[in-house]
């Protein structure tokens, strides 16, 4: 039987594009926010230009992602199962205890369901809350004339600026945890190599009813 691809090419492209955009946006964003402290080393003007261009790039990438997601049915990855809360607890328990004792991952990634329950919750939040919020506040900062002149008696754009910074901090935290998990806790088929190469995996085994059974089968 044909081997199936864990990460389709378009998804890998989007992922690495995001990796670059996020990193540079975070660095230039800090350079703008802490302008003049010489913390980053690129001046305000350069940071401003780069941040704007890449910010628009992020919008384009995100729109493309939404389109691809709808076309390929990839959006289903984000649909939580009814058992999500219990499953997520299991996964959390694994991260806290199981992983220390060298247990196996409680949920095995297959192309139809790449996210484990905790990942799924995190990505739903990142993709449908964090990135859109960052895009909206970012666009308002790019076109500040659209923002009200004054909010609560203070110069108009501050709520956008504060929200934008806050989400940026959250993205930064996300990036740390994501890198840590991807680099040191990666399950087989979801590590860095598979994100680069796509990782071909064998066709699915006959449907297993529980994760436990699935694990037993694979072992």
């Amino acid at each position: 039987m044909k081997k199936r691809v864990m990460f389709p090419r378009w998804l890998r492209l989007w992922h690495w594009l995001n990796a670059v955009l996020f990193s540079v946006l975070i660095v230039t964003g800090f350079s703008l926010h802490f302008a003049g402290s010489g913390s980053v080393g690129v001046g305000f003007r350069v940071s401003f230009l780069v941040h704007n261009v890449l910010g628009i790039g992020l919008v384009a990438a995100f729109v493309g992602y939404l389109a691809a997601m709808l076309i390929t049915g990839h959006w289903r990855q984000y649909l939580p199962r009814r058992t999500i809360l219990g499953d997520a607890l299991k996964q959390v328990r694994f991260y806290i205890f199981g992983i220390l004792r060298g247990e196996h991952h409680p949920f095995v990634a297959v192309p139809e369901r790449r996210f484990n329950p905790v990942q799924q919750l995190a990505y739903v939040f990142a993709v449908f809350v964090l990135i859109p919020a960052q895009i909206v506040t970012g666009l308002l900062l790019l076109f500040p004339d659209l923002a009200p002149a004054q909010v609560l008696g203070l110069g108009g754009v501050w709520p956008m600026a504060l929200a934008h910074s806050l989400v940026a901090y959250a993205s930064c935290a996300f990036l740390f945890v994501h890198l840590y998990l991807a680099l040191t806790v990666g399950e087989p088929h979801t590590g860095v190599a598979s994100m680069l190469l796509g990782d071909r995996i064998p066709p699915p085994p006959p449907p297993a009813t529980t994760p436990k059974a699935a694990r037993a089968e694979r072992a």
Partner: protein
Amino acid sequence: MGPMGTERNHATTSSRCSLASLSPRRSTAALPAALLGAALALAAGRAAAQPDASASLEQCLSCHGEQDAVREEPGERKASVYVDPHGLTESEHRDMACGDCHARSFAVDPHPAARRADCLDCHVVNETRAGGVAFQDIAEDFADSVHADKSPEFRCVHCHDAHTLQLPTTRARIFEHNKVCLHCHADEAQFQKLVDKAPPDLDEAHDWLPNRDLHWQTVRCLDCHTGYDAPLASHLILPKDKAIKNCEACHAETPTQLLRRYRDPGDGEVGKLGFLNARLIDDAYVIGATRNELLDALMIIIIGGAGGGVAGHGMLRFLFYKAFRRRVVHAGGHPS
């Protein structure tokens, strides 16, 4: 037209103008010999005007308070000689009568040619008093400025209207101040009264500045075009190649160029709702300058928390990994 153009209830307010209330201070203005001519005119005006100062104000405004009062100029041109009565009563010169600055001869119609008034006629350069305006610095700065350099006819009154002059305070006034410059630099006719060429293209000169119009609502032309040294309202307008082009002059923790404009800048102070340079946030959020301290504390918690959590977790795993290695290997599992 200025925002005050609509209200014109001067007849009632004009009675406030009493010369007696002015005399102690004004007496210091009449001394220097260099300004003798002006002083004489002023003294004469005062002496004669004393009994009917307010009447003279009303008399003058009967013509000059009309918005369509004009002076015929060569060609088809007409120059406005309208004086906003409300503007005068709101201005720093609110207690003065027309005759205090304009010689008595203006009482005659049509007016005979008379010497024109100028700020420095009265605000002699050593007038500086505690807390007051440093006219001496202003006069010196102006004398060194690119304007005085390029056009010997340039005087204070080309930028300042004695009839509406107010000391700068709020955002609204900053916009007024930029109008002072634009009134020439965006108006060829005004500009050519002084030099025989077209004004330089402001769009082209400032195309490096993003959101230019937004900047010009909160940033004064003076903030970029004057020297650093003077403490306030520098009048030392420098040649264009010395203008500020450096974003960090304003977009930074210490926005030197922006703080200069306040009498009490409260350098780098944290105020209102935790904003840095809280003086500025009333007018605008200035990226880099009005960061929020509370938010930055939150940053340390969020990012530090994530980094610390991850590091701690890694450390624990490392320790446990050593302890359980044998078991893991035995089970034949993936060690990660």
